């Protein structure tokens, strides 16, 4: 399995970042897309996500450990817990919400018009450049 690479522009890790940014350029596969994720502390992470591993956005967040284990993806990705709620900041045309996602969001907290469950967002070439922010833990 290909390892996941991260470019973290968080101030404290700037030295590490330069290296990992370079690595990312070297190893970036054509099948990877760029995603910008703002974590719950407000730090912005530019990450590469593979489109050929049947991953969803929640799994990408977990793979990069952008939220503590146990606080995201609790139900495993069944749209049954809302712990992976995120706000979509870019204007991407995402696939429409299914009934279960809509129902779960109607019971979640901190919901906004641009809320989605990240476990229901598949990593596909169509969402290249997607920008999201993780909703607070609840």
């Amino acid at each position, binding site marked *: 399995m290909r390892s996941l690479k991260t470019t973290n522009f968080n101030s404290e890790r700037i030295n590490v970042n330069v290296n990992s940014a370079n690595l990312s350029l070297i190893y970036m596969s054509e099948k990877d897309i760029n995603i910008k994720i703002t974590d719950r502390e407000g730090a912005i992470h530019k990450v590469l996500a593979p489109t050929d591993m049947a991953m969803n956005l929640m799994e990408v967040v977990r793979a990069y*450990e952008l939220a503590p284990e146990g606080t995201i993806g609790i139900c495993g990705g069944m749209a049954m817990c809302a712990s992976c709620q995120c706000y979509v900041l870019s204007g991407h045309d995402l696939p429409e919400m299914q009934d279960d996602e809509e129902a779960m969001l109607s019971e979640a907290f901190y919901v906004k018009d641009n809320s989605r469950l990240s476990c229901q967002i598949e990593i596909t070439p169509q969402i290249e450049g997607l920008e999201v922010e993780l909703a607070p833990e609840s």
Partner: protein
Amino acid sequence: MISTDILIIGAGPTGLFAVFEAGLLKLKCHLIDALPQIGGQCSEIYPKKPIYDIPGFPEILAGELTENLMEQCKQFQPGFTLGERAETIEKQEDGTFIVTTNKGTKHQAPVVAIAGGLGSFEPRKPLIDNIASFEEKGVEYFIKDPEIYRNKRVVIAGGGDSALDWSIFLSNVASEVTLVHRRNEFRGALDSVEKVQELKNKGKINLVTPAEIINIVGDDKVEAVVVSQSQHIEKEFEVECDHFIPLFGLSPKLGPIANWGLEIEKNAIKVNNALDYQTNIPGIFAIGDVNTYPGKLKLILCGFHEATLMCQAAYQIINPGKKYVLKYTTVSGVHGFDGTSKTAPKAVVKAIN
């Protein structure tokens, strides 16, 4: 004081299977779980969802798996402390542990196995500024004793199965039931949704949708809730009530276990996976989703394996110096503590003339 051989914290699939494996070694188990029912996530979050990676079961519903595990281990007569959260652990001079729950129930055992999954399930509390000050004063996140609502006015908030089911149940107990949900659509079993519709038509449930509770009113106890409804035009109004029950599901928190002196990494308990899944404290093990080690996979089937090896180590602690000889259930059968026995039928040896 409840005494047992292995005290298991968490009654999910891993904890239940540990009861069976312990039973084969003649060790008794008692389980503590914060939820009022067994099954952990399998019964709380996704009972109706199929699982496809339980060995030997091409497809099984999480709820059925829980029932099967209970059926498999019942002859070993596990004890249960349900609806209570394990709070503190104290090591005794004789090497045993005493685990006390949030309700003060004490349990003593020489071996403690933490099979706590992602932690104990805590209610998700709605974002209402003053809600904390009304807890135990008319705001309840769980329904423990429905009788306290007899002839009272109750407001329930939520849109899932528990909000629907309790609205139906309490419509026969309370003097008035109001169900408030953010949308007109509910997420629940079809019969529950239809039943609420019927009770609404009969005037037995006062349904307020799409709406949200934004405030609680009262001196010292709940007297009313402020509802914001956004059908056609936005409006706010008060609904007088004695109880407000927000039912927005539960979310797991590692909780007090995090303060037991165990080595924790990424919200999980570090264990020795080369040997027996013991933690940094001898006698305390962690099995299933709650533990971590290099290469850890949070899968039910991995929990089963971990539970099995943990029981072997527990056997050595409880029976020091005694050598255990592995026996196959096919050969030895299963002999319950309740006197029942299951054994393979003997082959018939008979001449054919």
